[in-house]
């Protein structure tokens, strides 16, 4: 019997693993202070850090959640690969159901988190952080030396791995849709011979 492969799932699985590696080094969203930048916030589900004047600051709980995200995505990618070569087994749908949601959730949670971050920064510190584009950001009076006024040129924007993540999430959803096609086209096994 010829073995089937869900080619879309195969590409999605490889892309998911590739996305993890890329996201470790290139952020999904970047916020720069100054031109040339003297501070940067690099954000991706697997790496969130703050770089001030060449010093990188990270937070243990954020670091742990980043590792958790990387492991979750890696599990999703590996299981998607396993599924892709065994799409017609009885357990295949379980594997696919687990794997295809991971990049999708990563993108959705990332966007929600980013909106929350900018909203909370505005709400609690009075700093209006743009999601995209450049602006001049005035620091609240409480954060400045007495009698001083500090205005900071900031730039923010999504970086190409974010768009790649959307493509990966799309591939995973496509793999789920393609699974239905495979299921429909798979011939039913011959019925067992009737007892004599």
């Amino acid at each position, binding site marked *: 019997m010829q073995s089937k492969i869900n080619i879309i799932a195969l590409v999605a699985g490889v892309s998911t693993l590739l996305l993890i590696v890329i996201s470790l080094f290139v952020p999904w969203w970047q916020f720069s202070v100054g031109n040339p930048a003297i501070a940067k916030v690099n954000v991706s589900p697997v790496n969130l850090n703050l770089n001030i*004047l060449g010093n990188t600051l990270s*937070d243990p709980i954020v670091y742990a959640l980043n590792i958790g995200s990387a492991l979750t995505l890696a599990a999703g990618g590996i299981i998607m690969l396993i599924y892709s070569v065994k799409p017609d087994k009885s357990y295949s749908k*379980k594997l696919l159901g687990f794997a295809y949601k991971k990049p999708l959730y990563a993108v959705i949670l990332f966007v929600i988190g980013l909106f929350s971050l900018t909203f909370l920064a505005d709400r609690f510190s009075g700093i209006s952080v743009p999601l995209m584009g450049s602006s*001049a950001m005035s620091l609240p009076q409480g954060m400045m030396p*007495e009698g001083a006024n500090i205005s900071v040129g900031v730039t923010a924007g999504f970086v190409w791995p974010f768009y790649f993540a959307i493509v990966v999430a799309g591939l995973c959803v496509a793999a789920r849709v393609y699974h239905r096609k495979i299921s429909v086209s798979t011939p039913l096994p011959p019925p067992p011979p009737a007892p004599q």
Partner: protein
Amino acid sequence: MVAALSIALALISIGCILGPVGAVVIIYHDDLTQLVITPEIRDIMNGNSSILPDMGQSNDGNSNNNGNSELGGLMAPVFVSAQFDDTTNTFTGVFNITNSLSEDLTLNSFSTDVSITQTDIPAGNVMLSSPVTVHAGETTQLTVTGQWSQTALDYITNNYGGASSVDLSLTNISINVNGIVIQTAGSVQISVPTNVVS
């Protein structure tokens, strides 16, 4: 088989998140606040971080740093030389600035109003002649220019005849370093050699 797989996948989902989070909780169990606020972040919040330059200097009207004023805490200028052109009442001052940080800094603009400290007579204004980039850990020269008012020059000529320096007040200081614009409402007191103003 499928039921066992479901359980295994659920455990993977939970373990991927709880594993790393549990690990850092165990590592920092003595002081769980460090999970969120590390000593470096706490120093920044308290304003005594060695990472950030001190921006909160001298607007109390009492500072006197012999013509050397920190540029927003990012670069420290050191007076080198000055020339005065008495036909146009203009002067040119040269300073060395050192960037002790690990990032390149560009001083895009600097301007200030100047007055004579003793009398508050407006003396003129001073500005950066052209933007200067100081690479990380390096020292370079910047040139500032200004034009003195005739009233101030007359006052200095009449009252500072034998003096080696003149006390001046800098107000409305505006500094643009790497797109960060710092404006101070207070004044900074400096003492400059008399050859800069006469």
